[in-house]
């Protein structure tokens, strides 16, 4: 295999008419280290309030639903109402994410909660998010010991608790936040970074869009203002 490696690299170098040298490697490293932004569309380069409005607008466009609540205290009620409104069982599979700990679930004791990765029978999951990206109404979720990825994909309904402060304008803003936390990921990225823009969908049957192909059919965002 290492023979293939050197043959491929040598083939590339020959085709390009030179060999990789220190200067070239240094230039590539420098470009990576600088991670300069390319053109960033103006759309989401607006003030924070406008970014929140844009996020909501774009998320609704892609068939996510959004409920705005004033504080984390209001989350249990909002979630219970959502579940009832869709005739869903009052059972949630939560990410064991400390960010969700302050939510006073005891306010709605009829909600049954469990925490962990998603299991076959879990119909509804509830997670936090790393960021919301206003540009396209996209949620960024990152994996970790307390944030299993399966909660984002296995259940039919995925509820995300997002605070307004987590909303940024552009993908580049989200990368910067991710890099700022890279110590938490041991200098790299976590196993999975999901950019989620609306629920699962497919157009594979006669080009008619259907939600819930393999991933969740419903993506509900509880947007916490405080």
């Amino acid at each position, binding site marked *: 295999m290492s023979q293939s490696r050197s043959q*491929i690299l040598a083939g590339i170098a020959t085709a*390009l008419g030179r060999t990789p040298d220190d200067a070239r490697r240094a230039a590539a490293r420098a*470009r*990576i280290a600088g991670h300069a932004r*390319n053109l960033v569309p103006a759309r989401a380069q607006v003030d924070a309030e406008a970014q929140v409005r844009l996020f909501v607008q774009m998320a609704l466009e892609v068939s996510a639903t959004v409920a705005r609540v004033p504080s984390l205290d209001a989350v249990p009620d909002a979630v219970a109402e959502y579940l009832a409104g869709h005739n869903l069982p009052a059972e949630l599979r939560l990410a064991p994410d400390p960010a969700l700990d302050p939510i006073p679930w005891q306010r709605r004791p009829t909600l049954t909660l469990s925490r*962990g990765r998603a299991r076959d029978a879990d119909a509804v999951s509830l997670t936090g998010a790393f960021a919301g990206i206003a540009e396209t109404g996209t949620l960024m979720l990152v994996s970790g010991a307390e944030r299993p990825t*399966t909660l984002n994909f296995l259940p039919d309904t995925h509820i995300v608790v997002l605070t307004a402060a987590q909303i940024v304008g552009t993908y580049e803003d989200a*990368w910067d936040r991710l890099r700022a936390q890279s110590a938490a990921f041991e200098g790299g990225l976590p196993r999975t970074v999901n950019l989620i823009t609306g629920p699962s969908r497919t157009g594979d049957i006669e080009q008619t869009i259907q939600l819930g192909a*393999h991933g969740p059919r419903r993506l509900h965002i509880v947007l916490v203002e405080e």
Partner: protein
Amino acid sequence: MHPTSHAFPENARRALNDETLQYMLAKSRTGFQLRRAAAAQRLPEFEELRDQGKAIKDHALANLDVYLELFEAKVTEQGGHVHWCRTAEEARETILDICRNAGARTVTKGKSMIAEEIAINDHLEAAGFIPIETDLGEYIIQLRKEPPSHIIAPAFHVSKEQVADAFRAAHTDLPPERSLEEPRELITEARLMLRRRFQEADVGITGANLLIAETGSTIIVTNEGNGDLTQTLPKVHVVLASIEKVVPTLEDAATVLRLLARSATGQEFSSYTTFSTGPRRPGDLDGPEQFHVVLLDNGRSALLGTEFQEVLRCIRCGACMNHCPVYGAVGGHAYGWVYPGPIGAVLDPALIGLKEAGHLPNASTFCGRCEAVCPMRIPLPKMMRHWREKEFAEKLQPATMRRGIGAWGWLARRPALYHAAVRMAVRTLRRVGTLPLPMLQGWTEHRDLPAPEGRSFQELWAERRGGSKR
């Protein structure tokens, strides 16, 4: 996949007479075009992003070896393995080894054109594994035992009745009297049947839209979420990617991603864009234990430094084929190999040879729509012309065509003779209604040949204006 590109004219004729295919083509064609146009229009910076996307890829290609090395180092640092494969055979062997070492039985797959290119499913089956396509379109064609006809919508040529037939034939455990009329019912059934497979899988194979050198990440873009279930649930995640997919940074990826969904389906962004970096981390509650990136060359490095280098900028959006009038008339299977449409016309001869795929760059009017919509500004007609130049140099074109064009060129270099020949031809045409040219039969089979006015312009000009001094 066994190529049938050499039979393009016969494939095309069959396709033109295939009623279901024609119905599906007519149904889907305009939608793709309108949606892409709307998405491009909605983003004021779209054209400039195309220029930047091109520049990023050109830079990456010009330093491909360096960025691949850096990518590999990062993957390894994060606990993954990189395997370098020069040929399809090496890639297949590598993947089979990984599956054997994992004691695998079921292997789920996300959509990957490279996987088609190396025909991995056939070899997985032959080695006793059970490969299951999880992208709904790919699943449908896997059941129907046919190749994909489009790089984004592999089963767009299949009607919902045909899908229902395929499901009934394959999902024999389900009650036969169940209704499978509506798309909703078909999707619910597919979701049910494939959910079990996702959970059973020991190995999940995905492609990669992009590789990021900065972080050692691979990116997949789906709307269904099947790629995510493929790569998260099994013990082993294998990424199969060709070498030209690498870009330097997350910022570079963002630029390309802004172009991808808009160009492919007219969406602002796909439902799921996922960055995978290494295996699960200590403490993670899910995720694969092993992360392998299989890098495939299979002819890509041979295109670097040649007049075809620019085709390596392709991000597999499918816009070219969505806008191509030839593809729109015959669909993807007529092209006879993995990549159809304008991108296929340039890439297939490079990968399977001009003798096999020579028809493809010829079956184009050079209308230029593909280049007009390609987010990476790949000059596709120009590269098709380069293939025609190679064919001409290697004398691969039909003799009658060569002789006809050759005779025309010979005459055209000799103005006096040319003008005399034109005068004669005009008279013949006027009298006989046609010219003794074998190639004209292709015209008159379907169209009338318009009558000439009886005299050539040069003759009449000389008469009326005394001609030119020169």
